[in-house]
């Protein structure tokens, strides 16, 4: 019973923050709420006995992606809310209706499927050692591929976000280009 209560609390927390992340006016608030929602999901993973995934989620989403989003918000001056500048598209009602349609379709599908109402078998666990062994044996190729992908994405992100060479640069920017903290962080 405590487990169930915990689940509903965490679920409420997560959904609330996710909704806030999508609706709040200031982008910084949105980003922080999204981070909270990600953290809530991490808790749900923990509650589902997926310890490693939960911490990985926390490390990657809260530690890296949320920071990245925050930086992107600041770099695009997204935190400056101009008066009269609408944050949502004019037909947002229609869009939300579509989302509700999607939700309804999925919910009906889930609720009508009897096999999905089953309870968990006890004693499932994902020990770190097993995960490591699997990663190094059965999933070694995907692991390598992900390594390559991450490297490629890193380089790509640096190249994309780097200032154009054609842009006229102030001399002091040239000097401090490599050590610009924002550049460094965005490149991560």
């Amino acid at each position, binding site marked *: 019973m405590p*487990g169930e209560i915990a689940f509903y609390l965490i*679920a409420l927390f*997560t*959904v609330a923050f*996710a909704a806030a*992340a*999508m609706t709040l006016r200031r982008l910084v608030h949105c*980003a922080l709420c*999204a981070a909270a*929602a*990600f953290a809530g*999901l991490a808790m*749900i993973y923990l509650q*589902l006995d*997926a310890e*490693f*995934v939960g911490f990985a*989620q926390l490390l*990657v*989403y809260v530690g890296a*992606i949320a920071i*990245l*989003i925050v930086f*992107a918000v600041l*770099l*695009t001056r*997204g935190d400056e809310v101009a008066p009269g500048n609408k*944050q*949502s*598209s004019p037909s947002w009602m229609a*869009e*939300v209706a*579509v*989302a*509700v349609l*999607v*939700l309804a379709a*999925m*919910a009906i599908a*889930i*609720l009508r499927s009897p096999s*999905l109402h089953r*309870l*968990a078998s006890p004693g499932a666990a*994902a020990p770190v050692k*097993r*995960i490591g062994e*699997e*990663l190094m044996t059965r999933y070694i190729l*995907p692991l390598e591929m*992900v390594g390559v*992908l*991450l490297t*490629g*994405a890193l380089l790509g*992100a*640096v190249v*994309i976000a780097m200032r*154009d060479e054609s842009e006229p640069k102030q001399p002091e920017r040239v000097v401090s280009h490599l050590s610009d903290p924002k550049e460094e962080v*965005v490149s991560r």
Partner: protein
Amino acid sequence: MSTPLSHYLILSALLFSIGFAGAVARRSAIIVLIGIELMLNAANLNFIAFWRYGTHPEALTGVMFVLFSIAIAAAEAAVGLALVIAIYRQRKTAQVDRLDSLRG
């Protein structure tokens, strides 16, 4: 674990729809990106839930999938946000509805 599987799936569907609504209705590219991340996370939650409630949890397939998915999401976020920044530099806007030069 007395919570049935369907509750997790409903939670996942909720998160997916919220993310979808945000991605569709908001104008800021960054929010669109967050929405997409939320949708991705909803899918991850499905994997974990099905792994936990599956008949062969010792196979770790769902866990592995989510681990890789998280790694790829990190790459996606990095590139996506770099794109947003690059577009902002060029167009001085990060609002997706202004980026319609491909209009037919």
